[in-house]
């Protein structure tokens, strides 16, 4: 628990727009990712959680003005050139997106993409890369991995595609995995499997995982620590259990009360939520 953080973010700020009139999106986020632990980042759309994750890898558009510090071990990532950043991306920090199709090339076989990826970052022979690709697919529980290598992404189900995307992310043994809503596009029965996989991988490979999600159920299932973000700021952070059972910040409480399971005690309470104004952040004045 007291291990040194693999990635540490200090005073991260992100603003979009022109230099003269920047619109701040993230103001002053601090965060540490520890090996073998899943750090959750919760918040609603527009809270800046995705922007935070993207800025770590320099994946924001050019118009974004990023300030603060993001350190990966001894390396400061902010301000790195394109080439150095490319060396870090995929090699030391991997990313898993909401839409697996975004990280898979539709016209190349899965095997092609996996071995390519292995070979650009680790200098190994073709045969070795292939062997490793089979291992990876096996690890993420893609059935019949040797045969799967020859297939194209569209020949897999959404859940299998996300598994393949995770396999690609793991290919070069990264230290950090940024997972941005990794299960949001998936059905709940498929999501459960992916959550198991992420949890197991984090433990077994000592990965430092940043899990960005709006889904508090998912958060509760696999995050060790949770940070709640709102309007570009972290309003509350702490160990999972504490955040869910003893939330301190009113916004965290609001998020938790809005959950459908939260106050369902008897069937007669059906529809009772409607009366509570606090559930409706959009209710105006």
């Amino acid at each position: 628990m007291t291990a040194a953080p693999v990635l540490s973010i200090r005073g991260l700020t992100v603003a979009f727009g022109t230099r003269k009139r920047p619109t701040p999106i993230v103001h002053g986020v601090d965060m540490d990712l520890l090996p073998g632990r899943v750090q959750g980042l919760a918040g609603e759309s527009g809270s800046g959680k995705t922007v935070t994750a993207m800025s770590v890898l320099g994946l924001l558009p050019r118009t974004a003005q990023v300030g603060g510090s993001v350190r990966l071990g001894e390396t400061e990532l902010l301000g790195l050139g394109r080439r150095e950043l490319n060396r870090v991306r995929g090699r030391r920090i991997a990313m898993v997106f909401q839409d697996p199709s975004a990280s898979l090339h539709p016209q190349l076989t899965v095997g092609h993409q996996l071995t390519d990826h292995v070979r650009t970052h680790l200098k190994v022979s073709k045969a070795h890369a292939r062997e490793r690709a089979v291992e990876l697919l096996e690890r993420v529980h893609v059935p019949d991995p040797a045969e799967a290598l020859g297939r194209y992404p569209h020949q897999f189900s959404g859940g299998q595609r996300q598994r393949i995307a995770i396999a690609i992310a793991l290919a070069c043994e990264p230290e950090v995995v940024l997972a941005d809503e990794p299960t949001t596009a998936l059905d709940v029965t498929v999501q459960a499997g992916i959550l198991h996989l992420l949890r197991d991988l984090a433990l077994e490979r000592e990965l430092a995982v940043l899990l960005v999600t709006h889904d508090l159920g998912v958060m509760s299932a696999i995050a060790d620590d949770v940070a709640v973000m709102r309007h570009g700021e972290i309003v509350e952070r702490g160990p999972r259990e504490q955040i869910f059972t003893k939330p301190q910040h009113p916004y965290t409480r609001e998020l938790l009360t809005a959950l459908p399971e939260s106050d369902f005690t008897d069937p007669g309470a059906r529809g009772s939520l409607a009366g509570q104004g606090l559930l409706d952040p959009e209710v105006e004045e």
Partner: protein
Amino acid sequence: MSDLLQVQDLVVEYGGRTPVRAVDGISLDVRAGEVVALVGESGCGKSSTARAVVGMEKPADGQVRYHGRSVPPLGLRTRDVALTAMQMVFQDPNSSLNPRKRVAAQIADGIAAARARGAEGSKPDYWLDQVGLAPDLAARYPHQLSGGQRQRVAIARSIAARPDLIVADEPISALDASSQAGVAAMMRRLCLDAGAGMLFISHDLSVVRQIADRTAVMYRGRIVESGATEVIWNDPLHPYTRALLAAIPRADGKGDLPQAPAAEAPPEWASEVPEALQRV
């Protein structure tokens, strides 16, 4: 009491020569003053069912009866006045509203439909209030609203038509997590206040549990389990319903992983369990 909506052996198919069967012979009914949920995962045919109910899809087989009359497909002819008492709420709030019309005008369209049926008239402000929006939104255009506000306006428009049946096709899944349950509960309240029935399509069992009197679980175009919501939630019989319920992650902070099915789409999910239907 005659059913408001009766769906009998409905089949919906897409495509030409080798059609894909999205809905494979389902039957359900909705009575006045109750909320019936149709739940299932992506591609199970729940949205196709909703579209067939309002006439957006022509059934390949089976029947959709509304007040005992067959629902004609939404073609080039003007919809029969009586049928405007059946309204729909769509999933995507961004395409639910005419971008070039102010909020008040869109709600007024709903009011006009109610008047045309001889129902009582009303003011757009009243309906804005009913869906929890401030009256000063009336003069805005849809792009000046957030997604959640748009969806509320869309709900206000359909409710303003004073429907006796609302078909809601995943009305909350595009909303922020914190407002989903609230909007769903609001829809139930509005619906019951008006004495209407609602067919609520969703993939989210935990929300459905909260607002539906009866639930039907759909898998691969068929209803595998149906009956009183609480019965299904507390004692699921069908393997698919069980897997579905077990896979919902609980936000209790305990760190328990939801149960994952052993395989993707195991064959027993498609099995028929007659006693899982019409449970009370």
